[in-house]
């Protein structure tokens, strides 16, 4: 058993990267995630494991460094926050198009534009519906604790290499900045160049030995027929991910009459709301999506026949709630409560809204924030 230590979410990501044998981190400072780069520089992993850490000149450069490193078959990671992720969108699309494995951490802040440096969850659409151009998907992991910030780094690399697909760890400024006790992962050595050649020699650009054909990392095919075939191949891969990798956490859902759906920090708030409701004799439960892509549509769909309604809570004006509505297919009502601009939802406000929903007195002015029925 490794030691349990008190860490910020951002620090946990940095330490987890070193301990899981990450080969390189490239990043550009932006609040509220700069501790990831700072912690890595401070730890000086070049001396510990040989891991490369480099402050890039921009997010654009950082994501393209990630492309270069990933195309070599190396475990590479970057991190940023909302406006920086927008700058990376081009590179993310290229990485997905070239089918390269890597981790991108988005410690979200409120937007749009320069927005605020306070926490937000308004990059859901950007994460799971696109962001960059073209038909691609990111595997999106949404940690709700500092422990998960640690755990999802290794899980992220496993999934990234299993599917040769970029993984996004999508979290918010609270999870990034808050401190909790963390069980660190056991340290693993980095793969050697020989191991990389053996494992990924059929695609990694490591210098062409005489015994194999040349490897090319590219997302280009000018032949429309071949490009369509490639898109069909990608779709097949994404369907496989949807079949195998859905992760979610149900909480007190067995007998629930009303279900809350929330991820990340909002899920922690809603967990408290469920406890408040249960104390008051209200049968409430929570479904926390852990993967945002693939999304746990079936988990939500499966509770529809036995619940009276669903309340989605997000730090956005209503993004994930559209996927909740997709799962519900109009069979039961879906309400939404959102805080934006760096404001946080509170368990009491969510509980107050839930009570009004149950009493049939829901009003969009009940509690601060954006409240509506879909």
């Amino acid at each position, binding site marked *: 058993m490794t030691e349990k230590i008190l860490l910020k979410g951002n620090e946990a990501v940095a330490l987890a990267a070193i301990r899981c044998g990450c*080969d*390189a981190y*490239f990043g550009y400072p932006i609040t509220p995630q700069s501790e990831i780069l700072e912690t890595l520089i401070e730890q000086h992993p070049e001396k510990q494991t040989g891991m*490369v850490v*480099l402050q*890039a*000149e*921009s997010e*654009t*450069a*950082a994501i*393209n*460094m*990630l*492309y*270069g*490193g990933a*195309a*070599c078959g*190396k475990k*590479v990671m970057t991190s940023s926050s909302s406006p920086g992720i927008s700058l990376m969108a*081009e*590179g993310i699309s*290229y990485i997905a198009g*070239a089918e390269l494995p890597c981790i991108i951490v988005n410690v979200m802040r409120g937007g749009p534009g320069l927005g605020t440096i306070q926490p937000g969850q308004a990059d859901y659409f950007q994460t799971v519906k696109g962001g960059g151009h073209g038909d691609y998907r990111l595997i999106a992991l949404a940690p709700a604790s500092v422990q998960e910030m640690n755990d999802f780094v290794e899980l992220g690399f496993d999934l990234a290499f299993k599917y040769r697909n970029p993984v996004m760890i999508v979290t918010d400024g609270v999870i990034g900045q808050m401190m909790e006790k963390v069980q660190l992962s056991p340290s693993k050595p980095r793969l050697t*160049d020989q191991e990389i050649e053996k494992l990924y020699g059929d695609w990694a*650009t*490591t*210098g*062409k*030995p*005489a015994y194999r054909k*040349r*490897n*090319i*990392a*590219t*997302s*280009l095919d000018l032949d429309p027929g071949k490009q369509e075939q490639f898109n069909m191949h990608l779709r097949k891969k994404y369907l496989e991910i949807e079949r195998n990798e859905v992760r979610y956490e149900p909480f007190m859902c067995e007998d629930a009459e009303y279900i809350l759906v929330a991820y990340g920090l909002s899920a922690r708030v809603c967990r408290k709301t469920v406890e408040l409701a249960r104390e008051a004799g209200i049968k409430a439960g929570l479904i926390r999506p852990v993967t945002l892509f693939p999304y746990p549509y079936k988990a939500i769909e499966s509770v529809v026949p036995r619940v009276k309604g669903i309340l989605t809570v997000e730090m956005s004006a209503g993004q994930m709630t559209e996927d909740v509505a997709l799962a519900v297919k109009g069979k039961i009502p879906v309400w939404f409560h959102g805080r934006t601009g760096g404001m946080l939802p509170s368990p009491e406000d969510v509980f107050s809204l839930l009570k009004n929903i149950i009493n049939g007195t829901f009003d969009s002015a009940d509690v601060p924030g954006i409240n509506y029925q879909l």
Partner: protein
Amino acid sequence: MEQNIIKQEKNKVYQKSKLLIDRVMHYCPGCSHGTVHKILAETIEELGIQEKTIGISPVGCAVLLYEYIDIDWQEAAHGRAPALATAVKRLYPDKYVFTYQGDGDLASIGTGEIIHACNRGENITVIFINNAIYGMTGGQMAPTTLEGMQTSTTPRGRSHIETGFPIKITEMIAMLPGVVYATRQSVDTASAVRKTKKAFLKAFKSQELKKGTSFIEIVSTCNSGWKMTPVEANHWMRENMFPVFPVGDIKDLI
């Protein structure tokens, strides 16, 4: 009969590089890219570094460069090749890493990446094709387009009042302490080809010294974009490009 007597191994004085893949190139007849590709393949072959070389190809006419030379390749987004090369070289410090970029790629959309890669003194070689025009997209103005030069987006000739001056990026790059070798060459004559080849060998060998970036600009022709015959294009280049982009070493600390 006489032919067979001459065609013997011992009489061979020149042959196509084994690294050049046997296929028809997509370049227009007269384009400089083909000649530079040949020099590049010969350089890698002569240094015996095929197994240790990773190339980064650009967006532009040379986007399909990876189809022509038998090494491992990464195809970068427009202008981003130096960022890819930075990561590759940092992760494989003993491999030979180069970017191949045009003027739009390197001197317009990719200025941030090239300046900072060179300023960090990344131990890579940069091959920069400057033909003063956007070839692949059909002849628009490049950052290096000469004043008065007509392109599809400067039909009345480039005016610095409207669109600035032709950018001398190699001179700017040479000012950076991270750069150990900056040279401007051409491939319009046999002797120019030989000089460019020497520059290539020197630049690639310099990666072993781990002293910084080596940067080679090749003043090139785009006869299709310039709407000239290949011969006219070479003349025009010498008369008009060379005064603005003079050929020769700009910095040599190797």
